[in-house]
């Protein structure tokens, strides 16, 4: 019997062998670069040469004294929070619509998922055309319906450009959030909802006092992914405004790209990107807590 317990039956060995390539890939090409991203932010590395020296806190001092960076940091926060507010409202409303049955629902679902399926960069270029300073169809429609008398330079005015960025981000993310909320709605035990109806709760009461509290963990998941998708996105701003006009609409990723890659100042680019970490840490901690709660809830059931 002993000699039958060969390699082919050792679960621990097999498990380790099968897991090793994935673990190696993740450690070497995500873990190490992640550390390197932080290390580089304390260096004066440039794209031109491979040797680099330490800059201490030099990069951080430089960017913290730079109004363009501070503006980008604020823009990142504004866009991320603004987008999530819009997404939560749109997604809970859309989920209420899409849980009902109606004619043409399959087609409606197909259209709803389009913004999520299309590559970010292609969506951004389409929106650039929609917001065009001369040919904007939005301006035409507003003017034709009598709502607009002047002219909106969507991507030429800092305030409007940030609004445009938030609209595009919300447009891109709300379908994903809707689908997640729908999955959450489907998982609410039917007895609870029925009991509320029997007790005389109408649509709004059922929505706000029964379903939304139960949906909270699911909405949280949607928001957390939304934060990651918005705060770390480069494509929308890069293509829509390129950070302009006059560097007023940069977000952290576009500024990091401009300084680190285009400007070849890897150290400063890395330091700017490091400011994405607070966003990510908040998300990671919240996710862990949610996952633990799901685990505990699962065990209790």
């Amino acid at each position: 019997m002993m000699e039958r317990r060969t390699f082919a039956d050792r679960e621990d060995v097999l498990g380790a062998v099968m897991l090793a390539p994935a673990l190696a890939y993740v450690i070497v090409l995500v873990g190490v670069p992640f550390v390197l991203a932080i290390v580089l932010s304390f260096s004066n590395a440039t794209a031109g040469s491979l040797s680099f020296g330490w800059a201490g806190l030099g990069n951080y001092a430089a960017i913290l004294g730079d109004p363009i960076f501070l503006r980008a940091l604020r823009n990142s926060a504004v866009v991320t929070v603004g987008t999530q507010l819009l997404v939560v409202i749109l997604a809970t409303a859309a989920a209420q619509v899409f849980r009902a049955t109606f004619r043409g629902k399959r087609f409606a679902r197909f259209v709803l998922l389009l913004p999520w399926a299309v590559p970010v960069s292609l969506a951004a270029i389409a929106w650039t055309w929609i917001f065009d300073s001369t040919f904007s169809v939005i301006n035409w429609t507003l003017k034709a319906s009598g709502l607009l008398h002047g002219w909106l330079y969507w991507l030429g005015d800092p305030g409007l450009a940030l609004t445009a960025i938030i609209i595009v981000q919300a447009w891109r993310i709300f379908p994903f959030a809707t689908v997640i909320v729908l999955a959450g709605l489907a998982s609410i035990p039917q007895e609870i909802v029925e009991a509320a109806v029997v007790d005389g709760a109408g649509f709004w009461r059922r929505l706000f006092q029964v379903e939304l509290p139960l949906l909270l963990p699911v909405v949280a998941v949607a928001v957390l992914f939304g934060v990651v998708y918005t705060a770390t996105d480069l494509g929308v701003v890069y293509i829509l405004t390129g950070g302009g006009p006059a560097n007023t609409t940069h977000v952290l990723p576009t500024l990091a790209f401009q300084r680190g890659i285009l400007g070849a100042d890897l150290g400063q680019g890395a330091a700017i990107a490091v400011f994405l970490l607070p966003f990510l840490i908040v998300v990671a901690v919240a996710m862990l807590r949610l996952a633990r709660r799901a685990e505990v809830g699962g065990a209790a059931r």
Partner: protein
Amino acid sequence: MTRAALRRVTRRAALYAAALGFIGFAGFPFYWMLVTAFKQNRDLYVGASDLSHVPWIFNDPPTLEHVKLLFGQTDFPHWVLNTLLVVAAVVIITVAVAVPAGYSLARLAGRWGERLGMGIFFTYLIPPTLLFVPFARLVSLLGLQNSLASLVLIYPTMTIPFCTWLVMGFLRSVPWEIEEQAMIDGYSRLAVIVKVAPRLIVPGILTVIVFTFTLVMQEFVYALTFISSVDKMTVSLGVPIALVRGDVYHWGALMAAALFTSIPLAIVYNVFIDRFIQGFTMGAVKG
């Protein structure tokens, strides 16, 4: 009409109105791509301040001019080919690495599987915009700058974590009995993995392939960082960056490219959406 019937009709009307609103918001840019891609230039480039010219419809007959330009005189076909090459290579790497890992976490690693799986999944949250600076350095160290190989090397850092998690979750829904029976029938553990398990994981592998395909089609940040010459670009990079000649935007061709790229992705998403969602919600949504 009774009060109750009236209320029902109003509610149906409100439902359809809301549905139309959401479809309008979500679908409007795609309608705009469609209209732009097939409009004649003299119909397309009329300033929006001219209220007598309705931009929402074809005022002149549609044309294939932009589509011909896109396929005949731009690098678009070349980018499609590049993208498919990268997709194929990344799919092979991802399946070869993530599927065994997912199996190991679900079936072999015992109680450590869940924790380790979540750890690997979390790396999916580390964004390209944090890693592109060190990767730019790594890629130039390896001499891979401006090559498709750089994308083939780096894209699995995004696909492997998510797909390992997907396969692990998928295998949990596959009953263990089939494999157990095979072992009772005298198969070794290894023989079960090689001969029995692959048949069971096929739907999971399909999801992995589809996820990888969509991710490679959509990726922009790394492509923008590593690739500089036009003939090495992928679709999602080439269209917004290289179809713009100097200051001249060929909007018709641009929108045609965006439209043709979106359609296959949209179809794939509709079919696989539920599997992706299971992955994203990580058990926060349990039936």
